[in-house]
C-alpha cells in the first residue's frame, strides 16, 4: 500500500484526534503548570516536630535570654525569652538574625593553619591534635627561653568562666598580658574605684528613674544592654519619665528624647560641671548626702564655682546659659534624676574627667546606691577555683609588668589598656609580643587607627584566633582554632552591662556542632594538659562542661531549667557601707587623679587650619560593630541614606555642605590626619554645622559578601588619644577636611 500525502495527513489527523482523547496533552499541561509553580530549585523546608530551647545570646554584652524554635534538629527562629530579667520577650535585630551566623558562610569549619602570606586567605586544614600541639610547642619554647611574658591574650571580656580560664592559663604560664577590649565600662569602673573605692561595675536603675540626663549615651542606639534600654525607654513613655539628650547629632535617642540639646562635641564634661555649678549655687543639692557621706566637697565646690559659671560654660559648649540653668534646676528637682555618659554605644571609654564629672552630678543629687540611681554592682563571686601553684618561671613572667602599661606607674589605676598595645608593640620600647591569642574580640576591625593595629599584628610572629567566624583578625592569624558558635555551646554569660543586679545567663547548645569546631574552654584545658607540669595541674577538669557545671554548683540545675540565675533584688546598701575610700566617704576630688586644675577637655588630633571640620562617629543598633558584623538580614535594614551600593554616606548639615559646594548624594573625599576615605554626602539638618558624622560598623574586609567591602571602617580614620589619668582612649572624634571627589 502506497502512503501518499492524503494518507499521511489522515494519519496525523487520526493521531491528533487520538491525542485529544488521551490524557497526554491535558496531563502535560497540568504538570508543567505545577512545575512552574514549584520550581525544584526553590527550597522546600522540611517539616517536623517543633520544640523550643532556652539559651542566652552572646552576640553583644547585653545578655538577653533567647528561646530558639526548632524543627526536628534544625534551629529555625530565635525569639526573646519571656520573663527574662533583661529582655522579657523582646530581642534586638542582631539577636534575631543569629541563625544566619550559625548556618552562614562565614563560619570557620575546621582548625586552619596559614599556608600563604598573612591575610592572603590561603589555609590548610589541620587536625585538632596537631593544632593544639603546635600552640603548646610554641608556648613551651617561649617559656623555656624565659620569655613567657611575651605571650598575650586579647579577650572580649574578663568576666565569665572562659575569660577566667584564659586568665588562669596565662597566670600559671607566666604572663600578665590579658587585655580586655575597652569600653565605657572601663571609665565607669575607674570612676567607681576612685570616687567610691570599690571594684565594681556600674548598675543603673533606669526602670525607677524619672529624669535621665544623658551625655550622648545612645539609650536606644545600643548603649548598655540594648533591649533592656528599649524597654526602659518605653517605661518612661508610660510613667512620664523625662529624657534629656545632650549630643551634637540628632541620634535616634535624641529624636525620642523629651529634649535634645545639641552641644559642641567633646565639651560634655564642661556642661556637667556647669550644671553642678548651678546646683551648688542655688543649693539644690542633697545636703544630707553631701554633708554625711562625701569628702572633698568644699574643694570641688570652690573649683566648680570659680571656673564653671553658666556663661563661660555656654561659650565652651555652645548651649546658652539659660538652658544650662533650666536644665540644672529640673535635674536637681526631679524626684529620681540620673546622669549617664558614654557616647553612642559606649564603645570608646572617653575621658575620665567626663565620667567623674557626670558621676559627681549623681552624687550631688544623692542617688548613689539608691532606687532610681546608680549602683556599684560587685561581680557575683561564683567562680571559685583552687589556688594556682606557680612555678619560678611563671612568677618571673608575672613580674615583668604589662605591655599595655596598665597598672604601671604612669597609669596605676587602669586594669586594661588595649588601646596602648599597638603603640607598645610598634615602638618595641618595653619588650616584644611573641605570641598573641585573640578570643571573643576582633581587634583588627574594632580598634582605632587600623593601620597601626595591622602593623603591630605584623610584628607578632604567632597569632592564634579562636573565632567562630572568619573575621578580620582570623583572616590575619597564623592559626585558627574555631570555637563552637554561641548556639552550639555551654557558657556562662556574666551580668550584662549596666544591670543594677547581677544576672548570670546560660548559653546552651541549641543544635549539635555543625562543623569540626571545639569549645575554646576545652581547647584551653587541652592546651594546659599538653604543657604539663604546674600548668596541667591548674586545670584538673576533663572538659569545659565539667568545669562549668562544677563552678556553678547548685545554680546549674536552676540555670538549665530557667536559662538564667538571677540574684535576689537590688542590694540596697546603706551609705555607711557603700564607700571603701580612705575617708570611707564619696570622694568628689579623688587625690589620686592629681589636682583639679588638670580638668581640661581632650585635645583631639588634627590642626584647625588644615582640617577645618570635625569628624564624629555615630552608632546605630542596625550596625553591629563589635565581635560580629551585620548578618544579611541586619544589612537589609540599613537605610539607603547610610549605605548605597558600596558607598557610605557622611551626614552633613546643609549649611556646611553649602560652604563646601556639596550636594545630596555627591561623592566627597574625607581626609583626617590618620586616613582618607571616599564617601557620599547626605544632607541632614540633625547635625551641627561644622561637623561630619560617619556610621560605625561598616567597611568590613572580612565576613561574607553581604557585608564585606561596603562602606568605610570609621577606625581607619581615627587614632586613639590617651587620657592623661587613665591611659584609656579618650578620642571622641578627629579633625577632618572635606573636598569634592
Amino acid at each position, binding site marked *: 500500500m502506497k502512503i501518499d500525502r492524503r*494518507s499521511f495527513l489522515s494519519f496525523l489527523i*487520526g493521531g491528533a484526534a*487520538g491525542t485529544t482523547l488521551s490524557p*497526554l496533552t491535558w*496531563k502535560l499541561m497540568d504538570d508543567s503548570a*505545577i512545575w512552574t509553580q514549584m520550581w*525544584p530549585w526553590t527550597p522546600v523546608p522540611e517539616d517536623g516536630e517543633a520544640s523550643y530551647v532556652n539559651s542566652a545570646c552572646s552576640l553583644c554584652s547585653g545578655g538577653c535570654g533567647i528561646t530558639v524554635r526548632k524543627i526536628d534538629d534544625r534551629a529555625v527562629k530565635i525569639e526573646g525569652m519571656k520573663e527574662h530579667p533583661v529582655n522579657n520577650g523582646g530581642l534586638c535585630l542582631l539577636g534575631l538574625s543569629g541563625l544566619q551566623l550559625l548556618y552562614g558562610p562565614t563560619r570557620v569549619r575546621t582548625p586552619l593553619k596559614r599556608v600563604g602570606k598573612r591575610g592572603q586567605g590561603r589555609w590548610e586544614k589541620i587536625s585538632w591534635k596537631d593544632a593544639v600541639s603546635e600552640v603548646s610547642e610554641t608556648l613551651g619554647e617561649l617559656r623555656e627561653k624565659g620569655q613567657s611574658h611575651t605571650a598575650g591574650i586579647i579577650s572580649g571580656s574578663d568576666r565569665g568562666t572562659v575569660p577566667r580560664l584564659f586568665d588562669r592559663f596565662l597566670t600559671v604560664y607566666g604572663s600578665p598580658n590579658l587585655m580586655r577590649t575597652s569600653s565605657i565600662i572601663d571609665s565607669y569602673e575607674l570612676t567607681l574605684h576612685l570616687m567610691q573605692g570599690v571594684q565594681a561595675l556600674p548598675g543603673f536603675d533606669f526602670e525607677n528613674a524619672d529624669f535621665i540626663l544623658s551625655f550622648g549615651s545612645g539609650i536606644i542606639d545600643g548603649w548598655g544592654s540594648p533591649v533592656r534600654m528599649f524597654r526602659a525607654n518605653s517605661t518612661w513613655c508610660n510613667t512620664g519619665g523625662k529624657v534629656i539628650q545632650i549630643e551634637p547629632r540628632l541620634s535616634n535617642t535624641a529624636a525620642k528624647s523629651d529634649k535634645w540639646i545639641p552641644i559642641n562635641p567633646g565639651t560634655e564634661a564642661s556642661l556637667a560641671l556647669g550644671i553642678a555649678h548651678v546646683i551648688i549655687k542655688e543649693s539644690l543639692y542633697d545636703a544630707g548626702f553631701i554633708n554625711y557621706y562625701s569628702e572633698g566637697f568644699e574643694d570641688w565646690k570652690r573649683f566648680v564655682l570659680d571656673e564653671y559659671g553658666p556663661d563661660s560654660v555656654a561659650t565652651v559648649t555652645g548651649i546658652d546659659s539659660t538652658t544650662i540653668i533650666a536644665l540644672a534646676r529640673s535635674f536637681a528637682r526631679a524626684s529620681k534624676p540620673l546622669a549617664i555618659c558614654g557616647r553612642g554605644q559606649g564603645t570608646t571609654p572617653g575621658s575620665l574627667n567626663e565620667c567623674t564629672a557626670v558621676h559627681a552630678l549623681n552624687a550631688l543629687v544623692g542617688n548613689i546606691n539608691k532606687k532610681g540611681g546608680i549602683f556599684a554592682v560587685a561581680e557575683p563571686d561564683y567562680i571559685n577555683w583552687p589556688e594556682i601553684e606557680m612555678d619560678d618561671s611563671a612568677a618571673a613572667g608575672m613580674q615583668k609588668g604589662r605591655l599595655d602599661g596598665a597598672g604601671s606607674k604612669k597609669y596605676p589605676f587602669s586594669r586594661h589598656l588595649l588601646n596602648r598595645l599597638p603603640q607598645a608593640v610598634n615602638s618595641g620600647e618595653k619588650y616584644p609580643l611573641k605570641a598573641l591569642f585573640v578570643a571573643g574580640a576582633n581587634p583588627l576591625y574594632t580598634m582605632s587607627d587600623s593601620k597601626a593595629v595591622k602593623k603591630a599584628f605584623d610584628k607578632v610572629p604567632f597569632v592564634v584566633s579562636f573565632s567562630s567566624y572568619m573575621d578580620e583578625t582570623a583572616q590575619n592569624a597564623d592559626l585558627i582554632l574555631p570555637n563552637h558558635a554561641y548556639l552550639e555551646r555551654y557558657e556562662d554569660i556574666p551580668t550584662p552591662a549596666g544591670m543594677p543586679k547581677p544576672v548570670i545567663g546560660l548559653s546552651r547548645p541549641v543544635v549539635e556542632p555543625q562543623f569540626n569546631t571545639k569549645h575554646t574552654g576545652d581547647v584551653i584545658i587541652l592546651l594546659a594538659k599538653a604543657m604539663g607540669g604546674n600548668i596541667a595541674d591548674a586545670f584538673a577538669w576533663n572538659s569545659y562542661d565539667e568545669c562549668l557545671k562544677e563552678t556553678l554548683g547548685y545554680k546549674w540545675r536552676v540555670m538549665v531549667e530557667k536559662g538564667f540565675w538571677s540574684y535576689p533584688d537590688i542590694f540596697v546598701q546603706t551609705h555607711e557601707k557603700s564607700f571603701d575610700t580612705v575617708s570611707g566617704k564619696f570622694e568628689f576630688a579623688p587625690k589620686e587623679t592629681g589636682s583639679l586644675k588638670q580638668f581640661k577637655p581632650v585635645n583631639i588630633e588634627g590642626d584647625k587650619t588644615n582640617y577645618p571640620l570635625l569628624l564624629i562617629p555615630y552608632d546605630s543598633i542596625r550596625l553591629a560593630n563589635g565581635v560580629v558584623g551585620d548578618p544579611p538580614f541586619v544589612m537589609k535594614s540599613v537605610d539607603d541614606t547610610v549605605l548605597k551600593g558600596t558607598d557610605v554616606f557622611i551626614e552633613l548639615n546643609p549649611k556646611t555642605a553649602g560652604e563646601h559646594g556639596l550636594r545630596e548624594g555627591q561623592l566627597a573625599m574625607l581626609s583626617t590626619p590618620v586616613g582618607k576615605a571616599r564617601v557620599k554626602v547626605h544632607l541632614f539638618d540633625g547635625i551641627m554645622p561644622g561637623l561630619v558624622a560617619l556610621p560605625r560598623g561598616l567597611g568590613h574586609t572580612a565576613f561574607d559578601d553581604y557585608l564585606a567591602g561596603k562602606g568605610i571602617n570609621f577606625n581607619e580614620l581615627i587614632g586613639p588619644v590617651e587620657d592623661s589619668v587613665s591611659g584609656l582612649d579618650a578620642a571622641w572624634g578627629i579633625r577632618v577636611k572635606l573636598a569634592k571627589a
Partner: protein
Amino acid sequence: MSALDNNAKEIAKDAGDEGVTTSSPEINQKEQDNRSAGPVILFFIFGLFASLILGWIIFPKLLYSKKKQPIDFNHVLHVAEVEDGCESCHFFREDGTYSGVPKLEQCIDCHEEIQGDSPDEIKFVEEYVSKGREVPWLIYSRQPDCVFFSHAAHVKVAGMDCVTCHGHIGESESLKIYEENRITGYSRDIWGKSIGGFKKNTWDRMKMDDCAECHQEKTANIERTDVKTPTNRLIDHLIDVVYPGTSKSGKGSSIQTERDACFVCHK
C-alpha cells in the same frame, strides 16, 4: 538547469494539474474517493489508535518513575500489635500538628533487636536502627509546599477517618511501588491512579478538586466552608462581572471567591 528552475517547473505542473481538476470537479472527486477512501480511513484509525495507545498506556509509563521504598512495611502486622489503631504511630502532637510518618525513635522501642527473620527487618535494624539513620520513606500523600493541611481540623474537629483520604493502606501487608511524576516530582497518589482522572473512591486522588468536592458535599449546610478550585472561582467571578448576581456562588469567608479564603489551605 538549476534546482531553482526545476522547482519552478514543478510548481507550474502542479498549477496545471489543479487547472484540470477544477474544470470537472465532480467526476474527479468521485474517482479520488474510490481510489483512496479505504487507506485514508485506515490511516486515520492507525493514527487514532497509535496516539491512544501512546497517551493512555505508554505516556503514563514514561511520566512516572517507579521507586521502591527503602524497606518494606507490613501495616496489618503492626496494627494488630498496637492499641490505638492508626494514631498509635501516626499521632497528633500536643501543639496540634500531625506527626505523619513515624520517626526511628518510635520504632526503636520494639526494633532495638531484630524481630523475626524477614530480610526487610534485618535491613531495617542493621542499616537504620543500629546506625541511628532515619528511614528515607517515600511519602505517597505528600502535598506540595504551597498546601497547608490541618489534620487536627479534619480529624479532631470534623471527626473524619483516615480511610477517606488515605484509603485502606492500614490493611496492606506490603508497601506499593512509589510512583513519582517526572515533571512535578509529586507522588502519583496525589494526581490519581487513573491517568484519565477517573475516580471511584474518595481516596483515589488528592488534588484541590477532591478537597472541594468533599467540602461541598459534606459541609453544604455549614456556612463558609466551601472550597472551589481557582479556575471555577475565576469562571464564577467572570460570570459575576458580566451578569452580576447570577453565579451560583455560596457564602464563603473570602469576599473575592465567596468561598473559603485562599490561605486557609494555601501558604
